[in-house]
């Protein structure tokens, strides 16, 4: 089958050769890319496996448990009951009281932490003398173990003993004052963290812009509100997002201060009582999943509605 090339065929062949080279180039390129991809996947595989083992598996197992009647005291009575546990939890006033208390603590503490954190950030950013000392001392509360700090708050507010307790009152035995003390402990503890995140944002504001605004006659408040705040908005949103998610899962402060007495339980406290104290894996897992979903919704709202971006994400990632 010898072929005598006709001009047309030669032309076509020439074309084909042309096509062939680009194809080969493309092929080489994709091969290289594929190899690189493969290498990349191989390199991340250990991390992915570890993540699957320590994160995905427990999450899926918790979801599975939440669909079962499972009590460690009656291991033989386990059975699949669809969404009964969720119905039990969501129709319980105990859950909704805890949910309300948690939301209250989250919103109030995040608000005060933002305002005070911003003030502290500005102080730390603007300090000229003893900058290291100011920053170190401001960060001290954050360095103290929460449980230790919570114990000292508890003793300070104990009736007849505490140095902060007014004579003849027992603030940790009433709902209102207990919640106020829990929020206070939270704020005291995490303002430095907030300030740290915000200070990183402040460092990005160009001095020139502030000077130019000052030249145009903008007051200090206007410079802050119209120049600084818009520029550090990403930092503010990230800080708020982190704090909201953290505050929603509050446990240690409440556990030490009131152990949930007088209806001060947070959702995490209620989950603990049912899961660890009550050994009711079904109900407890349903609660864990509900907390997981709620934090997911909070993160979603922050990212989609307010345009918070994960630290390190490029501008395209923001919307």
């Amino acid at each position: 089958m010898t072929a005598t090339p006709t001009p047309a065929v030669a032309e076509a062949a020439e074309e084909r050769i042309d096509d062939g080279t680009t194809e080969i180039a493309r092929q080489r390129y994709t091969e290289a890319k594929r190899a690189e991809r493969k290498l990349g996947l191989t390199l991340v595989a250990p991390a992915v496996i570890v993540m699957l083992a320590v994160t995905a598996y427990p999450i899926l197992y918790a979801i599975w448990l939440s669909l079962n009647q499972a009590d460690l005291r009656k291991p033989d009575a386990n059975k699949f009951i669809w969404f009964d546990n969720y119905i039990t939890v969501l129709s319980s006033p105990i859950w909704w009281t805890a949910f309300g208390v948690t939301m209250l603590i989250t919103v109030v503490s995040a608000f005060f932490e933002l305002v005070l954190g911003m003030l502290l950030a500005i102080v730390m950013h603007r300090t000229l003398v003893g900058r290291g000392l100011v920053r170190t001392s401001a960060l001290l509360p954050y360095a103290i173990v929460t449980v230790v700090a919570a114990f000292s708050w508890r003793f300070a507010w104990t009736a007849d003993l505490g140095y902060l307790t007014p004579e003849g009152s027992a603030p940790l035995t009433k709902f209102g004052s207990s919640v106020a003390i829990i929020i206070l402990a939270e704020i005291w503890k995490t303002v430095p963290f907030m300030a740290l995140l915000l200070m990183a944002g402040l460092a990005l504001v160009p001095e020139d812009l502030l000077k130019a605004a000052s030249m145009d006659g903008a007051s200090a408040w206007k410079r802050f509100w119209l120049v600084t705040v818009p520029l550090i908005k990403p930092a503010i949103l990230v800080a708020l997002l982190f704090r909201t998610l953290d505050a929603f899962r509050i446990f240690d402060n409440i556990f030490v201060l009131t152990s949930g007495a007088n209806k001060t339980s947070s959702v995490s406290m209620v989950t603990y009582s049912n899961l660890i104290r009550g050994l009711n894996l079904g109900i407890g897992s349903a609660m864990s999943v509900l907390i997981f979903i709620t934090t997911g919704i909070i993160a979603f709202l922050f990212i989609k509605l307010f345009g918070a971006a994960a630290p390190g994400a490029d501008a395209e990632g923001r919307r």
Partner: protein
Amino acid sequence: MICLGSLMALMAPMAACSSGPGGTVVNLYGGASGEGFDKILADCNRAAGGRYTIVGNLLPSDADGQRDQFVRRLAAHDSGMDLLGMDVTWTAEFAEAGWIRELTGDQKTQATKDTLQPPIDTATWKDKLYGIPRTTNVQLLWYRKSLVPNPPKTFDEMISMAQQLKSQGKPSEIGLTAAQYEGYVVNINNLVTAYGGTLVNENSTAPTVDDKTVQALQMMQRLATSGVTSKSLSNAQEPEVFADLQAGRSAFSLNWPYVLSAMRSANPDMVNDLGFAPFPTVDGGTPRTTLGGMNYAISKYSKHPAETFEAAMCLRNEKNALSAALDAGDIPALATVYQLPEFQKAYPMADLLLTGVKNAVPRPQSPVYQNISTIVSTTLSPPSKINPKRSADKLRSSIQAAIDGKGILP
């Protein structure tokens, strides 16, 4: 300490000679930190003659924390716990879960010999014995002799006496525990049994909240609103109730037997004015109050059940029960101790205690007691806001939900 056993037998697992004494170790959890308990431990270790060593391990100081640790480790089949010092209210839960061993045959005979029946009842679930009663407890009526010449027999009498004292401007308060915690459940149970009622049926399959419960709640509400209780009644636990008596505000105090020895050191001037009487009733009959105390149970996962049983029997024998009563104020479950002269000297109310314990009743026996207790204390707190009928209805439906495994804990 060197573990010769595992040096000689190389195949022996290292766990067999973990830190601490060599040989067989009986790990005791619960009640190991009482005053003078080291003496008792040393005595029993001597008696064991080297066959085993009892090691007392510490638990959290509050009952909830203790139970948390027990259930977490037992649910995980932890073999590191042998002897469990259990609150009398945990028997049904632990037995139903299969965490503690049933005592049968000779062990059962030994564990119940000379032991008062009501404490045995607290260690029994569905007609099987699961514990060795160690201590028991029962509340008494404490009163000021100078204010109250004849102690009241019924709640009605007590309330009217207190009101009379109040109108004369004398100390008049009735002290009782009514904060939102276990001690309040004890008092509610006292009243429910006084009217002849119960909260759950025998095998804990259904709530038994009825008109007797309603009457009991009426009485608690009346007591709280009659103006003769402390202003901080809804926060009162044992220490507060004791403090009210010590400071001279109370004329009557419903509290455990520790009051006498505590008053000897807290306010010696008052000891001579301090009277004790049987707990008040509703009809002047025999008081049937709520039992406290502690039982020893053997963990299902213990590797040395025989030694553990022997250890428990030693820790609560007559000599050691007396020593615990004198040093730590533990009221013995052994009937014979009440006759000992040393005991009667330290406890002038010994006869009253013995009658009290003999007529006492356990708290609701149920595998979900923890839930029931929480339901009772939260539903009925504060006592002045009780609405007898409505609160009883709520109790009934919540207890039913807890039994069905549908209730959630706050």
